[in-house]
């Protein structure tokens, strides 16, 4: 809210500079976001404070409201305008009538009628003030209503009496299908949730929001009805949402206007009009109230509790003095319990704790000491957080850069059309860029690849751990995934040599390292029946843990790879963190005694069909259960001359060891022979010197 300093000074003494005032207001809870120096005619420069009013402080949305806060903070006197209004002849009862059908939505409706108004511009001083507060001057009547709203916070509305059928005001909810053309020229369809000011026939204003064009004060206006009313904040807010319309008036009504100030605002408007040479109002005013004389609101307050919650030893007198400054009076009840009498404008004060805050901010938060809570507890990351850190660690150690991409996305070139049915859309998205929740982390990684490749040779190994969503049985479900993108060599080429580009096996190594570091065993990479549109159909695998699908890994489909500025093959993987977590081993890893006897290493180099998957070789080898067979490794995979084209020759290196003694050649040979036999039988393997 724009607060011209000159205007503010009308209501309280401000002897400090604008900057000092801004600091005091800010530290008192009214944040001054900036000070603008405005040029006016009378004075070369008038500082205008830009004050942010929190949503609970509707009472501060006026010059008087800010002045009241300033006076409380700086302990200066407050002078609010109050002048008795002289009245003209006639009787209000004859001039107009008001009927409130829904008193719970409109607890108070006051009105005066003025006859013989001469419409014209308002005086320059008023125009100047309106402009510096950010309002456009329109005509004397409208300017007065706006001026009073800015001055006292109570929105007013002036109706042309010609536009009020039978001079009769009815406050009611709109009927289905009713329409109104508002002052902004828009024709609006109303619903029964919207409160309207109607005349005998039709709505002539949307309550608390905007008047209707038919009753607009215009050049030919002579007689007006001035409305000053109190509307239910939620009702006004709902109307704003339904009509997609916000005004200065609705902004204040939503934040609650002081119901007790309704008449004062009406009288102030009449006073200003009279000052401007306009006629006095018709004698009497209308004031329809749901509760004619509402009691003063009260809260029970214990000064001891104020001290306990603020953490400052405060005496009762100090508490009372602080509250006195914000208009709250304390009455003794019994012992250390008091009753706080609340000012009408502070509808935000509802609980004892609200008064604790008032005391705190007036006494000064800078006076609160720093104390640590007593006692200690064990803390730390959640189990899930620790698990994700354990996933992050080996991926980063593998040379992958962690990235953090958007979970709110739009369509990307990398989407799998098969996912369309399970993608979770965002309902109230206005922009296509944030229209859905990501189903997978891979498009985000590819998005980075598509723009970072043009200038960077490194940073092509990246991973992300984040949330993904999909529809499950009609409901959106949230999961956590870890995904990686690998392209090119793990490190940039250096002055000695070009590093080899990564391939599927290298990515598989990264995944295996990750799973191994988590202690997860029984991992299977299997060729998928339908690998997904993102993947090269011949170079993709599903990752299974104990037979449960945990993710996918594969090479980017060449058609997709074309969209990237890289020549290297692009490898992708994505794993479900929920599945990995389910397969974490329970309990600590147990120590295995160090071997006491030497190992014997022997190689076999069978010739097998090039079509034979390595898995078949593994299966054959696994069928040999000999205690001395410690492990085996594939150390070479040879293809080419002199082997026929459809034959390859893996070199398998076996390690034999006994826990009890040094192995003899005979023992090793016997097991080796078994291994050879299994390879012959299960894989059709041939060995050196054998035919075929």
């Amino acid at each position, binding site marked *: 809210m724009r607060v011209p300093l000159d205007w503010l000074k009308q209501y309280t003494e401000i002897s400090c500079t604008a900057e000092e005032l801004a600091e005091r207001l800010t530290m008192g809870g009214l944040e001054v976001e900036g000070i603008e120096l405005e040029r006016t005619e009378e004075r070369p420069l008038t500082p205008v404070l830009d004050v942010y009013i929190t949503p609970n402080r509707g009472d501060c949305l006026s010059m008087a409201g800010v002045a009241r806060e300033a006076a409380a903070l700086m302990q200066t006197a407050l002078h609010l305008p109050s002048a008795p209004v002289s009245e003209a002849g006639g009787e209000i009862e004859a001039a107009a009538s008001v009927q409130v059908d829904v008193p719970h939505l409109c607890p108070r409706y006051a009105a005066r009628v003025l006859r013989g108004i001469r419409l014209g511009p308002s005086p320059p001083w008023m125009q100047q003030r309106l402009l510096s507060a950010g309002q456009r001057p329109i005509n004397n009547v409208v300017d007065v209503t706006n001026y009073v709203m800015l001055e006292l916070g109570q929105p007013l509305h002036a109706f042309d009496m010609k536009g009020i059928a039978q001079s009769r005001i009815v406050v009611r909810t709109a009927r289905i299908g009713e329409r109104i053309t508002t002052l902004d020229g828009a024709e609006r369809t109303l619903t029964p949730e919207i409160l309207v000011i109607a005349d005998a026939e039709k709505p002539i204003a949307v309550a608390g929001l905007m008047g209707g064009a038919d009753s607009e004060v215009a050049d030919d206006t002579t007689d007006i009805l001035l409305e000053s009313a109190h509307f239910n904040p939620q009702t006004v807010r709902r109307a704003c949402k339904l009509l997609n319309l916000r005004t200065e008036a609705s902004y204040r009504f939503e934040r609650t206007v002081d119901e007790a100030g309704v008449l004062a605002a009406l009288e102030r408007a009449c006073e200003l009009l009279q000052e401007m040479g306009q006629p006095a109002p018709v004698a009497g005013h209308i004031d329809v109230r749901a509760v004619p004389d509402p009691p003063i609101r009260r809260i029970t307050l214990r000064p001891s509790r104020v001290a306990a919650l603020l953490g400052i030893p405060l005496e009762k007198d100090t508490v009372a003095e602080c509250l006195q400054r914000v208009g709250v009076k304390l009455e003794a009840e019994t012992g250390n319990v008091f009753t706080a009498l609340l000012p009408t404008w502070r509808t935000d004060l509802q609980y004892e704790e609200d008064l604790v805050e008032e005391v705190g901010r007036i006494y000064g938060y800078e006076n609160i*000491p720093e*104390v640590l809570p007593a006692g200690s507890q064990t803390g730390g990351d959640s189990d899930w957080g620790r698990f994700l850190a354990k996933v992050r660690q080996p991926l980063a150690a593998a040379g992958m850069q962690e990235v953090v991409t958007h979970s709110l996305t739009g369509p990307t070139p990398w989407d799998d059309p098969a996912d369309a049915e399970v993608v979770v859309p965002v*309902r109230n998205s206005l922009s296509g860029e944030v229209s859905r929740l990501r189903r997978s982390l891979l498009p985000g990684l590819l998005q980075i690849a598509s723009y970072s490749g043009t200038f*960077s040779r490194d*940073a092509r190994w990246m991973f992300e751990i984040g949330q993904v969503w999909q529809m499950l049985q009609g409901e959106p479900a949230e999961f956590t995934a870890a995904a990686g993108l690998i392209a090119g060599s793990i490190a940039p080429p250096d002055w*000695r040599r070009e590093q080899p580009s990564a391939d599927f096996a290298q990515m598989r190594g990264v995944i295996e390292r990750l799973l191994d570091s988590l202690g997860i065993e029984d991992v299977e990479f299997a060729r998928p029946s339908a690998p997904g549109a993102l993947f090269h159909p011949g170079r993709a695998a599903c990752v299974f843990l104990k037979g449960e699908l945990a993710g996918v890994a594969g090479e980017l489909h060449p058609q997709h790879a074309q969209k990237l500025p890289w020549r290297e093959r692009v490898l992708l993987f994505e794993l479900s963190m929920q599945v990995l977590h389910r397969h974490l081993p329970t309990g600590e890893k147990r120590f295995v005694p160090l071997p006491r006897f030497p190992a014997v290493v022997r190689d076999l180099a069978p010739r097998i069909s090039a079509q034979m998957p390595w898995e078949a070789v593994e299966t054959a080898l696994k069928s040999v259960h000999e205690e001395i067979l410690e492990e085996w490794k594939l150390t070479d995979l040879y293809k080419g001359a002199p082997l026929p084209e459809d034959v390859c020759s893996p070199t398998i290196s076996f390690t034999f060891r006994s826990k009890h003694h040094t192995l003899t050649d005979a023992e090793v040979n016997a097991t080796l022979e078994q291994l050879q036999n299994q390879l012959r039988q299960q894989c059709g393997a041939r060995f050196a010197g054998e035919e075929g």
Partner: protein
Amino acid sequence: MQAEPFLCQENSLLNNQITHLLEQALAAVQNAENTEELHAVEVACLGRNKGLNELRREVGALPKEERPAFGQNINEAVQILTAALKAKQTELAQKELNAALTREQIDVTLPGIPMPAGRLHPLTATACQIKQILGGMGYEFVDGPELEEYRYNFEALNYPPDHPAMDEQNSFFVTDTRLLRTQTTALQGRIMEQRKPPFRIATTGRCFRYEAVDATHHHTFHQIDVFMVEENISMAHLKGTLGVFARELFGQDTRVRFRPDFFPFVEPGVDYSISWTMPDGRVRWLEIGGAGLIHPNILRSYGISTERYSGFAFGLGVERIHMLRTGVSDLRLYLDNHPRFLEQFA
């Protein structure tokens, strides 16, 4: 090496031969230029049936009484030669090693081979550090969903229905009842449903608000939220906790300041700033986040006695912390993942 004179009992022809051979051999040892030549000398003089050993065979030609002396002379000659060979061997080996070391000299000023650099994203790294600080202060981290229920995001946090306070929290709705959480504070209700005080909880994660994106606003950002409920908790405890936390994060000179502010879930509500020394040496107050004592409505709605218990809550932005500490000026950089940006933060 000097040939040592040795005594011959008989100045016989054979003994002269020993002397002669030894002198020749010692000269050859002396002249050897490298270990290979030295080895050749060794073979020629001490090899089987060569040099001195060849002379041993002549023993048969000597009269019986001269034989022991002759043998002794040869043995002494062999010992002298062996010692000379060994000394020369050591000398030559050292020389050759020195030559090899000189040959193997490299240019240590050449650049190193880059190690593959896997780094954490600065937001993750910052969150990790905050987790360590708060974990050490006894706060247990708990995770909440990003796709949150409306009631936890607003109602459980004392947002009155249709209140303007929600205007600042414009949300992305996914269903009638679920939205992308606008604040990690949404975890509070979930915790209070399950636990009885005392507790000290912290959470971190991604939040979403319907905002136009610019250098200081984003529809996606990351928050840390801390809340605790114990007996006799006051604003002084909140200030003390924030003080320790801020000093761990921003340096031991950091001070904390409160300013009244409004959040529906705290009363009193404040925003807190830290003292920040600008490059020109001036100290400014920088707003970090919101805080306050947990609103009594919230405690009561979970059956927690406000007479016995009170608690505080505070929140802050992960991006904000990293921006303050490193001088990053554009919020958008974090989700852009520009390699030149990420590689700056090891």
